[in-house]
């Protein structure tokens, strides 16, 4: 357990130290939110319709950003070999890495997402729900993305490959997350999609580490 805490601290330190890791995702997110009105036209009525949905789309894309480095860096410098030999099971190591990824990218994005959505014309009453869904969905994005990152270890063109492998897995959280916000905005039942989103995120958090560990062992073999 102690080793995992050390690992968490190392992951957090690395992502902060490397050119302000979390800021990168937020900057990407801000850039997407800025480009959207330029692409669709600035009419507020038009933007308000797509604001919650595109906030979620940008979230999914921004969480793809740092996935490439999740296992690749440790794989290249041999740290992953040591982690695989260490006392902690590789499943827990993978889970800890994803959790650190969630803290450093999903948490800042959960703060940025409601601001961007409101700037695009969504109602301010949606802000808490957008932040909440971004936090919960972030778990799903990080653990699903971790599977893709682990699978593409040792391949050429890792980053692009992760996107191709992982984007289909992102469909359910995007549907449920954006669905909860739309339902809330429309005065419909928003708890059901939120619960589905939570269920998906927890299921990936529970099952994903096994796939990640298997993929890492495969890459190290």
């Amino acid at each position: 357990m102690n080793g995992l805490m050390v690992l968490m601290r190392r992951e957090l330190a690395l992502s902060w130290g490397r050119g302000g890791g979390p800021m990168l995702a937020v900057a990407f997110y801000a850039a997407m939110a800025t480009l959207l009105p330029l692409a669709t036209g600035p009419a507020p009525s038009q933007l308000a319709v797509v604001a919650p949905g595109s906030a979620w789309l940008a979230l999914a894309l921004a969480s793809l950003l740092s996935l490439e480095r999740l296992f690749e860096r440790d794989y290249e410098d041999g740290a992953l070999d040591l982690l695989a030999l260490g006392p902690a099971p590789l499943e827990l190591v993978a889970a800890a890495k994803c959790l650190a990824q969630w803290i450093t990218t999903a948490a800042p994005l959960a703060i940025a997402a409601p601001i961007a959505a409101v700037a695009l014309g969504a109602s301010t009453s949606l802000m808490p729900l957008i932040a909440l869904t971004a936090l919960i969905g972030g778990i799903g994005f990080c653990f699903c993305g971790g599977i893709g990152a682990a699978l593409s270890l040792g391949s050429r063109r890792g980053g692009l490959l992760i996107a191709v492998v992982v984007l289909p897995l992102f469909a359910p959280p995007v549907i449920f997350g954006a669905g909860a916000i739309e339902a809330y905005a429309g005065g419909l039942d928003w708890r059901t999609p939120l619960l589905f989103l939570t269920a998906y995120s927890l299921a990936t958090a529970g099952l994903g580490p096994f796939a990640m560990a298997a993929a890492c062992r495969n890459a190290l073999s």
Partner: protein
Amino acid sequence: MFTFLYNPDRFMAFSRWAAPLFGAIAAVLAAIGLWLDFAAPPDYQQGYTIHVMFIHVPASMLSLFVYACLAVASFLGLVFRQPLADAAARAAAPLGAGLTLLALVTGSLWGKPMWGTWWVWDARLTSELVLLLFYLGYMALRAAIDDEARAARACAILALVGVVNLPIVVFSVDWWNTLHQGSTLFAPGGSGLAPVYVPPFLIMIVAYLGAFGSLWLVRIRAEVWRRRANVLAIRAAR
């Protein structure tokens, strides 16, 4: 049941006559099915566009069936380290992608006269599209890793992740939106398909199965040969 196929030599002996046989059965059945189809009167609502159904629906059924085959082969390859199972998984992926694409394209061609649009973001179309993306991701991963054994295992893990995930994707997309009609043939309360269309439709499904079986065997054979050629090339280089 299929354990005798685990041995590559026996598999090659079996597939040598099985592949052409399946292909011939598929060709004959497809000819009969299409003949019966065109002999049948046009549908009272859909007119002549009903003919698309005999191409479109079996393709979309098979696209899921092929994924199931791919997943079973991946499981056998990952857990029991069956080299042939891995070759089978590798051979199935492009066939599945092709069938999915065929289903999407014919569906689009059918949708234009019937629904008045090439494409709608409806539940079944979207999940079929996601299935295509799965296949493409699988093939991309296979192509991107140089070491073949390693690529095989990574792809098997991805295929099994997809087995867990695809039902969720289908469910979530269903929940998201629905316009496509439900299954007609297996609808509760009996088939909604006019009786005259049922025989050619079923024949076409069997023809598709035969064609897939034949092509799959041919592709597995090609994969086995490719590996043998690799081994020979390595031996010659020494």
